[in-house]
């Protein structure tokens, strides 16, 4: 390997520079600049011995850049194409800020970052191996993208063909390594120098964190990571965050008039509350207008026990305000259902003269290939801007327009909505009682049993409850931003378990009790993340929603069979996870996690949860396998 004289000179320089720095703690870029100065040339033959060590690899500077961004964690399935950065992280960086978390699959490492960011509001980095690792992580990156979550993905790659040492390095390298994820990342770059890396990394962070947020990818060249630092005057650019854009003031004034004068306004909240302040602002707007909020539960937008929660009637609305709603069309229309042959015209659910207004930053950024943008949103006013950032001016504009007479009218409306909310809650309790003593367990029973034991804790539900018939949403009192993080975004199955571990990691420093309702089909994609939770001592209570199948597909295939006048009893072929039943408590134990169950008798649920909570409070993750009904 030492036939390249330039390369050897590099090693000599690096060795000299590294020796000078050996005893030092991680350096700022200014210090590196001095350290990377070329070593003095010498003519002494004895000193021309081949140097096989490099104490100042480029990865050290890369890590300085990452540290400057305040990145707390790096998740990775170990990879040869990221080995330089990996080593710098654990030794040069002391394995702190970022701390490296060992993952068993790139889908897990990326989804962990997804879950973390939704609790913490900030990205971590996921180091992903070139080509095959990127292919493994691609679905999780797509989920990030659809869910508008900031994330920095570092792709290892050896772009220089002459630097590839084996056939494996050839098969795992690419000319354009980010191409397979470019359709669902906000930005990517392939830096060819350390200074280029510094600028691109800072730019990547800024882009990821600018609404609409999303994943970004930076390619980390193998040579840049592993070769000595030769560049001089290296510096880390200042991070200047973009202030999220607010909606146009004239449009906000017009919208305020419409809302204040509306008889039946409805607020629909999509991915609105980026921060806890977003939840507070939406409560303030709703209470100012005494308007109902239909929360799509993609974020913790609105408290579930608030009298204005969930009681908006789209059919009766005269003004509908959609806040960061991706698919307004499906909110206001109904398509031909699956129990009908062919597609008829979509049925509009709203009144003909209803005004539809959107505030969203999604209008400012769209890609082409993947169709997550849904139908064209035919609204009366599309206000481009970040929903959360726009709410203060909208609230102020509304308050200015409300006269005492109007306030009285709004309060009367609010009282009626509160009554409707109360009825909705009563109905939910009534429905929850159905099948109360059934086995398999009803999802309502499991949710009620859980609530009884966590309601006085500082809890955070990090699993999506959509496949649990939304019983936690219907029965629990969600009123804090971190208590709910929505779903995957791209509906890519396999997100649940790793995202929950990532979210639990973010909750750990706050001492919160993390609860994950875990779908069985989802866990089986990459269950190794259970080991990651144990290994890194991430406390969390996992409740298996063990309905023993891909239940959505059980229903779909059965529907297809009856539609074809064929045997519906065969709907379980290819969709059920039975014969044998999977024992999730044993699976957890195999990964070193304490496992309880399977629980089939409703009377056993409460004691199992009690025991599990003791384990979680001791700082460990635990799995309770509850055998449940389909939904």
């Amino acid at each position: 390997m030492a036939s390249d004289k330039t390369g050897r000179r590099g090693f000599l320089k690096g060795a000299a520079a590294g020796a000078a720095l050996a005893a030092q703690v991680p350096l700022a870029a200014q210090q590196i600049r001095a350290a990377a100065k070329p070593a003095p040339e010498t003519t002494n033959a004895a000193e021309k011995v081949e140097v096989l060590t490099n104490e100042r690899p480029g990865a050290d500077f890369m890590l300085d850049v990452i540290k400057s961004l305040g990145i707390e964690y790096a998740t990775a399935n170990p990879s040869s194409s990221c080995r330089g950065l990996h080593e710098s992280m654990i030794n040069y960086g002391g394995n702190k800020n970022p701390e490296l978390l060992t993952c068993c699959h790139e889908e897990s490492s990326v989804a962990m970052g997804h879950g973390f960011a939704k609790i913490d509001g900030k990205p971590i980095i996921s180091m992903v191996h070139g080509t095959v690792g990127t292919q493994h992580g691609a679905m999780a990156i797509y989920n990030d993208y659809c869910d508008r979550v900031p994330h920095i993905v570092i792709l290892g790659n050896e772009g220089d063909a002459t630097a590839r040492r084996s056939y494996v390095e050839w098969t795992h390298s690419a000319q354009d390594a980010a191409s397979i994820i470019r359709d669902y990342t906000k930005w990517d770059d392939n830096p060819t120098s350390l200074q280029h890396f510094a600028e691109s990394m800072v730019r990547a962070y800024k882009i990821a964190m600018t609404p609409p947020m999303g994943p970004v990818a930076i390619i980390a060249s193998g040579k840049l990571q592993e070769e000595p630092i030769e560049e001089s005057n290296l510096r880390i650019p200042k991070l200047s965050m973009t202030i999220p854009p607010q909606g146009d003031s004239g449009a906000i004034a017009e919208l305020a008039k419409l809302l204040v004068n509306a008889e039946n306004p409805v607020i629909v909240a999509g991915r609105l509350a980026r921060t806890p302040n977003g939840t507070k602002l939406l409560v303030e707007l709703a209470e100012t207008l005494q308007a109902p909020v239909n929360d799509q539960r993609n974020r913790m937008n609105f408290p579930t026990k608030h009298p204005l929660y969930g009681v908006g009637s789209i059919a009766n609305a005269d003004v509908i305000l959609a806040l960061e709603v991706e698919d307004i069309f499906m909110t206001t229309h109904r398509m031909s259902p699956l129990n009908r042959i062919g597609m008829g015209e979509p049925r509009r659910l709203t009144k003909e003269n209803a005004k539809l207004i959107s505030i969203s930053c999604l209008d400012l950024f769209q890609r082409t290939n993947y169709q997550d943008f849904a139908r064209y949103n035919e609204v009366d006013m599309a206000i481009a801007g970040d929903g959360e950032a726009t709410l203060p001016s909208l609230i102020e504009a509304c308050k200015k327009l409300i006269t005492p007479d109007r306030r009285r009218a709004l309060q009367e409306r609010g009282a009626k909505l509160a009554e409707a909310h109360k009825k909705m809650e009563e109905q939910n309790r009534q429905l929850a009682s159905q099948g109360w003593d059934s086995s398999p367990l009803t999802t309502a029973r499991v949710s009620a049993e859980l609530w009884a034991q966590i309601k006085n804790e500082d809890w955070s539900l990090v699993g999506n409850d959509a496949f649990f018939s939304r019983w936690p949403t219907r029965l629990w009192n969600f009123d804090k931003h971190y208590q709910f993080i929505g779903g995957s975004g791209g509906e890519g199955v396999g997100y649940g378990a790793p995202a929950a571990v990532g979210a639990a990691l973010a909750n750990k420093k706050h001492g919160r009790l993390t609860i994950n309702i875990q779908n069985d089909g989802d866990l089986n994609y990459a269950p190794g993340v259970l080991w990651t939770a144990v290994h890194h001592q991430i406390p969390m209570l996992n409740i298996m929603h063990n309905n023993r199948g891909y239940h959505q597909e059980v229903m779909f295939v059965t529907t297809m069979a009856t539609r074809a006048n064929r045997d519906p009893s065969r709907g379980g072929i290819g969709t059920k996870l039975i014969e044998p039943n999977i024992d999730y408590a044993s699976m957890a134990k195999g990964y070193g996690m304490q496992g309880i169950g399977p629980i089939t008798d409703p009377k056993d649920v409460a004691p199992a949860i009690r025991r599990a909570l003791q384990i979680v409070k001791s700082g460990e993750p635990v799995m309770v396998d509850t055998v449940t009904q389909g939904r």
Partner: protein
Amino acid sequence: MKKPFLCIAPVAALLLAPFAAFGQNAQGSAENGHKIFLKNGCYSCHGYDGHGGVGAKLAPKPIATAAFIAYVRHPAPGGMPTYSAKVMSDAELTDVWAYLRSIPEPPAVKDIPLLNQ
């Protein structure tokens, strides 16, 4: 002469069967109905004991047999998939109805402390 008579008898029985099933208090085998309910995937939307879920709540007081069968044959748009007579006979649906009818009432909400927290 005997042959035609023997043929007519089962045909007449088949023709009369639906009318019997459409009676308000049609008879049926709850035990067989339970088996059919599980085998044909009814449970997947309506819950193992018809308490509801993705699909409507069916038990413990199902609608009248005739209305039940009519709905299964011609569900409302957006409702359940159609189960034609080729997939489930009226007699089988009558058995399913009998099973749903046999399911006991769940405890009242007021008697479930967990739902009154």
